[in-house]
């Protein structure tokens, strides 16, 4: 893996303003910032990019509601928030996050009726936000602001009890994507029998610890 990392010009995909393009066609999105930072951190070669500029770009995507969008000025969205908060967490820059402001925005994603989380105001709850919103809340130590038991119930309600798997909403079609996010959400909610995952990497904690604590 390290060998191929030399060939792949990650640094070449970083733009002047610290953002990352997904490929040569230049589309910029903070999701790419997260992907680069997450991968390079695991491979222990974050020095291949300009971390300070990458952080500055992410901070420029911070909105007045405390959330983050895909580009500067873009509306806050739970998926983008996960990417930005995750990238800031991995690089030790969470002091740029207004934890109380963002924490309130995130905790208001919880639907009173179903207990599920949505990705933006006035949208429907969806199991995948059990990872995006939940991880973000955990990383900024505000997860106690949602009602965890209700969220567990929502995820379990999204199971297909006949054929297995988890769907985006109760009684909708299951898929691998939502099954993964549902299980990951249960892990972050300390559901018994599920291994603990790290909120920034969504990898098991024993794996991230092993990688990052080995000097």
């Amino acid at each position: 893996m390290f060998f191929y990392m030399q060939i792949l010009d990650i640094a070449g995909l970083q733009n002047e303003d610290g953002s990352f393009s997904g490929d040569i066609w230049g589309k910029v999105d903070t999701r790419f910032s997260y992907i680069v930072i997450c991968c390079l951190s695991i491979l222990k070669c974050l020095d291949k990019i300009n971390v300070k500029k990458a952080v500055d770009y992410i901070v420029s995507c911070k909105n007045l509601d405390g959330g983050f969008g895909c580009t500067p000025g873009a509306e806050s969205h739970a998926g983008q928030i996960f990417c930005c908060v995750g990238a800031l967490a991995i690089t030790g820059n969470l002091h740029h996050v207004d934890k109380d402001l963002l924490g309130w925005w995130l905790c208001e994603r919880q639907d009173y009726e179903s207990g599920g989380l949505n990705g933006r105001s006035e949208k429907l709850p969806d199991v995948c936000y059990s990872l995006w919103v939940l991880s973000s809340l955990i990383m900024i130590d505000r997860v106690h602001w949602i009602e965890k038991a209700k969220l567990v119930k929502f995820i379990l309600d999204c199971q297909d009890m006949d054929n297995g798997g988890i769907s985006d909403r109760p009684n909708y079609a299951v898929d691998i994507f939502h099954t993964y996010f549902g299980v990951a959400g249960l892990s972050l909610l300390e559901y018994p029998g599920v291994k603990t995952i790290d909120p920034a990497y969504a990898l098991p904690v024993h794996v991230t610890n092993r990688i990052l604590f080995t000097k």
Partner: protein
Amino acid sequence: MHGRPRKASNPEEEAASAAKAVKLRSLQSQFMKNHHDKIYTEEAIELSMKLLEINPEAYTAWNYRKLAVEDSLSRIESDPNLVNSILDEELRVVESALRQNFKSYGAWHHRKWVLSKGHSSIENELKLLDKFQRLDSRNFHAWNYRRFVVELTNRSEQDELHYTDDMINNNFSNYSAWHNRSVLLSSLLAQNADGFMPNERIPDEYDLVHSAIFTDPDDQSGWFYHLWLLDQTLNVETPLLTSSWPSHGSTINLSGAGCLNGSSSKFTTFCSESGSFPLILYFDQAVGGVSSSTVTIDSELKGNEDLVWEPISYKNSQVSCVWVTHLKYVSSDPCEYKVKIRVGNSPGIVSSRGHNFRAPYEFVFTAHVHDTVKDSQEGIVSWTDGFDIWDAKSMDLNSLITLDQLQAEIDFKWRQEAIDSEVECFGILSDSKIGNLTLARLLMAREAMLSDDAVKGVRYEEILQLYNDLMALDSSHYQYYKDEHSVAFLHKVTSSSESLSRHLFRYRGMNNLVCLRLNNLSLSRIASVEKLLFVQMLDLSHNELRSTEGLEAMQLLSCLNLSHNKIRSFSALDSLRHVKQLKVLDVSDNHIGKHSVDTTRYLCSSPLSNSEWSQDDVGRQNPGLVTKYWDAYFVLRDLKLKQLDIAGNEISGNEFSSFVLQVVPKLVWLDGQKLGN
């Protein structure tokens, strides 16, 4: 993947689905062959279009089309008509793909790519956007594209603001429009553009957002906009000094490691082995540039030129609300010294938002250096015995909690009027969650702006009641309201000398240390620390605290009791690494080790957040234990604790205790037992 109802598929549906898959696979493999072989014939290009019509998210197909376009353009020698027809075709393909899926990332990006070649008119694009906004006014792809077009064509922010007016008037439940409005307005306000003075504009915006909140209090669209308006009303751009230690007009006693000969002193006594005492500056917002040139010290205490100032903050940050330096004194040189501090002596102190600390602010205190007489005591510190009641008469607390803010330059009138007007409005929404919450926030804001001591503190009971009501009304967010309640409670406690002195004591056992008792108060959150910088002993036991966030500013703190709280890990105590005076720490009977999920993992400076760390002997000899107890290792090794209590946690046990002894070799007392040599 999203929004498909779950149902058992019948044979006809399965057959149709299989046939579609076969067709798609065939198209895909033909397409990929064309792409790999770089075939850009008309048929090949048309094939890619067929693929995109079925699946607009076939990302490679969009990239192929870009390559095909560039290939075509290179052949036609810039005949404008031909160029236009080629690019028009791309726009048509995008539009058709968007009809299939108006949220296709690939389609929108392709259109941006075409436009970047200087093609299409702003009119066309705005018309297209109108179409999509009508289909879904929350489509963030469309909003992002709109911002792209606006920037490309230099459309004015005022025009775009009018557009948000239209969208909001059409349907206030449009968070995307409110968001866009906030971006445009904050830019116009920052520029001081014509017609965009905060004192006129912000009150107008309050009126506008009322339409959203009052029509349907359960709709969140206006909530966050209103909160932003409140922030604009309350927060002054210019950084101010909130408090300091020592504070203006105070007298402090300084001595060497041995401390004074027991007499009950009127003032704060500071004992130091290193012969220096902290000078703390607490600003109302994060600032950078505090240094020996921007902050001057005028005193006869020798050896204090070119002091080094440090921000009390996370490792990577050069800005902080709290800055500290250490002034040296010689205890064998007993005398009284006046110390004059001038903050902002020269320009350079700048907030993280780029605003300068303007008027230089001066304060003066007296340092009374004493000769050391007694040997230092190594007795165990008790949290129950040896305390004297604070003599409110002998001690002028006001000198300790003076908050002498220079507010002359701040335009307060419109701010207070706006808050008062909002308080009146929101009184009406008293049975809705957002009504109660907003009212509580408004009352807190009003308290923060009051300077008349006589009136301060009066509304806190009302604020606390509002949060209690909210805990019942919106139980899903109970803990949020609980935290806000704790903050309001602490503001109330510290709002006057009289209420604060009810919680103050003196600890005889360590030469009359100033002790603040805030135990058994159901506190879930720490606040008002800027008013508590003088505290040396703090009892926060029997509360519901989850972390020590906020305590990092308490540079005088030498004893801290956190027993019987809800601390889940040592990473939650990371802020204590800044409290260099800390000698006594009690974290017994908490939840350390009980939970598998660590919510402060990334708020702690460690290798997990890619912080540099230097390997020491403990790390070299016990890599396994360091990984297992990583947060205890990183937090404890930075402290010089003499007394530690960790019993009553799941992590407690022989293995952990012996690890702690390795990490803190100078520990004298562990769990109440004196350690042998």
